[in-house]
């Protein structure tokens, strides 16, 4: 399943949400060694609040495989509160701009690409449904070539700076009418791959 989880339906999927926070702790803290707060094996921060929403790809048992977090940009978010130095231009904000954070993918290469592509389609579908014109994100330079290879229109927001010793930069991914068509062949999902379910989310209401 690919679920949109937000304040309205979060409590319906307690196991799935916990497994997401556990995988986030394993990936970001144990493997990437990011300095993030965690408790009981789960990574969460001040932005995991009522206004956060998540795109969560899960297996048949509804356990977390991969996810991202969307933050509103008309409220405090990472680019404006934690990494303002990454934007040389004005920080993009507004009701039609979301910040993508906490991209959590499986480690095995094959699973990783499949999950990445399912999330990418979810990001584009979500934009169409929720009226999102663009996403902002902090992108580690190690991931820049891969992010750009998707083919969508992506623009830099500032020069890269070192974060925890690794260079990272702010980028904006634009959701234009032609974005679905621009998506590169190796970023596309097989037809049987799950599509975004808004089941009982704020968006569905």
């Amino acid at each position, binding site marked *: 399943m690919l679920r949109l989880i937000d304040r309205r339906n979060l409590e319906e999927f307690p196991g799935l949400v916990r497994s997401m926070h556990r995988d986030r702790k394993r990936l970001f803290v144990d493997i990437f060694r990011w300095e993030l707060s965690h408790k009981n094996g789960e990574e969460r921060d001040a932005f995991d609040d009522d206004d956060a929403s998540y795109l969560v790809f899960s297996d048949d048992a509804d356990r977390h495989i991969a996810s991202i977090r969307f933050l509103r940009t008309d409220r405090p978010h990472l680019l404006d509160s934690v990494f303002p130095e990454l934007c040389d231009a004005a920080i993009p904000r507004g009701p039609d701009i979301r910040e993508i954070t906490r991209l959590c993918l499986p480690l095995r290469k094959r699973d990783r690409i499949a999950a990445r592509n399912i999330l990418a389609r979810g990001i584009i579908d979500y934009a169409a449904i929720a009226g999102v014109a663009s996403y902002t994100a902090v992108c580690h*330079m190690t991931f820049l070539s891969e992010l750009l290879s998707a083919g969508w229109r992506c623009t830099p927001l500032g020069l890269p700076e070192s974060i925890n010793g690794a260079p990272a930069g702010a980028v904006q991914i634009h959701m234009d009418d032609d974005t679905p068509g621009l998506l*590169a062949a190796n970023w596309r999902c097989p037809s049987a791959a799950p599509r975004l379910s808004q089941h009982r989310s704020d968006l569905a209401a």
Partner: protein
Amino acid sequence: MSRFDAVQAFVDEARTLHRPSELRGLLDAITKEMGFDYFALIHHVDLSGYSEALTHMEEGELVALGTYPESWIERYIADNIVANDPVLLASHRTNVGFCWSDIPTLIPVTEAHREIRERTVMAGIDDGFTVPAHVPGEANGSCNFAVATARALPYDNLKMAQLVGGFAFQAARAMVFNAFPQVKRAIKGPLTQRQLECVLYAAKGKSDWEIGQILGISQGTVKRHIEDARAHYEVSSRMQVVMRALFEGQIGLVDALR
């Protein structure tokens, strides 16, 4: 114009270009603006299909675009330096830009590597900054910025070069893939195990004779396997076979270039 404004202008304009020669002009201008003298934007594969007219890009084969001195490009391709260039080998060990002076921290530098570096310096290319451009499931690539002999690296502009390199590679990549007709890209199915082994070593820049030595088969047999792979993919050159095998994920890039 601030450093960031210059990058932004480059990214916006690069997206509107359709011809490799236009991208070369645009990248040449910002390369000089950043304080470098030369650039080379390349896929790390056999470059024998390279042509000065850039038809290799318009025909959708590979990214290879630059302003290095022409005589050095010729030597570089003729001697297949791409297979053992310490700059490119080092770029396979990282995903972020690095100064060439940091190469010894990335790979063990051999006598052969030192010799290549010396030849590069002799050719008038002194020092540089390389931005790796690795896309999963595709040939490794990089955007290399270099300074002429006796000129210092523009250390203040390396962050700028990091971004320009990444976006420039994508612009070139998009030209190549968009030029490559969809029909030709239809998946052809797997090669045989033996064909794959031969193509893998060809991707590493080995000659038929060398591949034969490694696999313990004759040079003629290697030639036949690669010829069969070529026929299988319905392409006309050895380089295209490598590109197809990479494109279809038949050979792993990290492995192929290790």
